[in-house]
Each structure stands twice: as structure tokens, then as C-alpha cells.
């Protein structure tokens, strides 16, 4: 069963991670490894695209919490894009909108990264 997939692409110095499927305590280590690899290579400007993610539990939310302080300290950020309402509600329950930025599209998130550089 292919329950969770991550694909990566880059745009200039930005890294876009696309999540697909189900993000839970079983699949969260895969995301943790992906973000950890980026951060270890100082690739700290990260956009996470949720358009094809069907499910998230607290194990998935926790991965973002584990890295956000580090990436911001290194001058980057983790920004979220294309999140459906079902997934957003879980983020909202924990209070994540106070910490993270949510964008409707990758382009909007890219523009925000660019405007921060000016």
C-alpha cells in the first residue's frame, strides 16, 4: 500500500516539498528525514504543498514543529501552501496558524519568500 509519498522540486533557492497520501505516526519519519536532509544542507527556504495530502495526525504536525526554530534561525522558513479545509482544521486545533504562514498556492508562497528578501 503506497500510503505516503513525498516529491521534491526546487525553484531558485527555494525547496518545494509535495506531500501525498496519509501523514501519521508511521509515515512521519519519512517527512522528518526529508526536512532534516534539507536543513543539514542549509536548504532552509521550504514550501510544503498539501494539495494531495488526505490525512494528518499530530505526528505529522510535530515534524514541522521540530524544525521551524532551526530554519528560521538560519534565515529560512517553512511555509504551507494549497491546504484543504480538512487538513487546515487539524493545524488550527493546535494553534499553528499563530506560528506558520499559509498560502493558497505555491506561487503566493514563493512571492512571499521573494518579498522578504527585498
Amino acid at each position: 500500500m503506497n500510503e505516503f509519498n513525498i516529491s521534491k522540486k526546487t525553484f531558485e533557492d527555494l525547496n518545494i516539498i509535495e506531500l501525498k497520501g496519509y501523514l501519521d505516526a508511521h509515515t512521519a519519519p519519512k517527512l522528518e528525514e526529508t526536512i532534516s536532509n534539507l536543513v543539514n544542507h542549509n536548504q532552509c527556504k521550504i514550501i510544503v504543498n498539501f494539495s494531495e495530502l488526505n490525512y494528518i495526525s499530530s505526528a505529522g504536525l510535530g515534524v514541522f514543529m521540530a524544525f521551524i526554530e532551526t530554519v528560521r534561525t538560519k534565515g529560512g522558513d517553512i511555509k504551507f501552501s494549497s491546504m484543504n479545509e480538512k487538513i487546515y482544521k487539524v493545524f488550527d486545533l493546535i494553534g499553528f496558524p499563530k506560528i506558520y504562514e499559509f498560502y493558497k498556492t505555491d506561487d503566493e508562497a514563493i512571492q512571499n519568500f521573494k518579498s522578504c528578501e527585498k
Partner: protein
Amino acid sequence: MNFIRLMMKLFKILNLVRNKLKDSRTKTFKSQTKNLILIREFVKDFLASKNISNEDVNKIILAIDEACTNKIKHAYNCDETKDVIIKLKLSENEFVAEISDFGLPFNPEEVPIPDLKENYAQKKSGGYGIYLIKKVMDEVKYDFNQDGENKIILKKKVKLNNV
């Protein structure tokens, strides 16, 4: 005539028993995170015919996933040979889930409410599960019995879709 009446009564009782069975389901899963997807399917399948709003179905699935994750990680310390037993019930508009393990007792009442500011600074990835369960369910109770069974009981009044 009496025979017909008796048969009708019997049929009525059988129907009641059948409906009762239909409204409760129990299944045992091995304590493995790879089973979380099967656990969610089990819950979804149970709720599918119950005409419950999608929002409530999603909340219940999340709460049971979080409770099972806690049992796998904390009660059993990821020992994959152990069992997690899930019992689901629906009577009228109240949904009840009882999830049992026979591992280390774990009292979620002692888990503090997550402090996002502190977790941000400490890069803390865990500690959100119990908080989420309490947010999406109406009632969360714990029962520890002498046989070593640790049970978490989750209750929620559900919204039914108009037929």
C-alpha cells in the same frame, strides 16, 4: 394464531439483536504504527452507514488514531507483538470508543496542555495527541482495572445528516 404471534415476536427480537450487533464492533490490532491506516479504515467503515456528518467522522477518526498511537508508543513502547483492542458503539446519536491495552499504565490527565511558544523554542515534536483528542471529543475517560487492562473511553454526541 398464537403461533403467528409468537413468530412475529421472535422476529422482532432477532431484529433488535441484529441492530444492536450492527451498532457495535470490536477488533484487535497488533501494536504497530503501520496498522494505523487499517485502524482508520476500520473506524471509517463502522461509521460509513451511520449517516454521521463528515466533520464528526473526521474528528472521531483523528481521536482514535491519536489514542492508538499513544498506546503503541507509550503503553507498549513500540513492542509490535502486543495487542490494541478497539470497541466502537453507536447508540442513537452518541458515539463511544473504548480502546484497551495491557501495557504500561498511562494517565493522559497528567499530560500538560502544549505550550506552543515553549515547544517552538525546544523544537518539541510530540505532546499534541491527547490535547487533540480532548479538543475533538466531548468526553475522555480512563479506566485501569486489576487485570492490567488500560482503557481510554472516548465519547461524542454526533451530528446526523438529514436524509
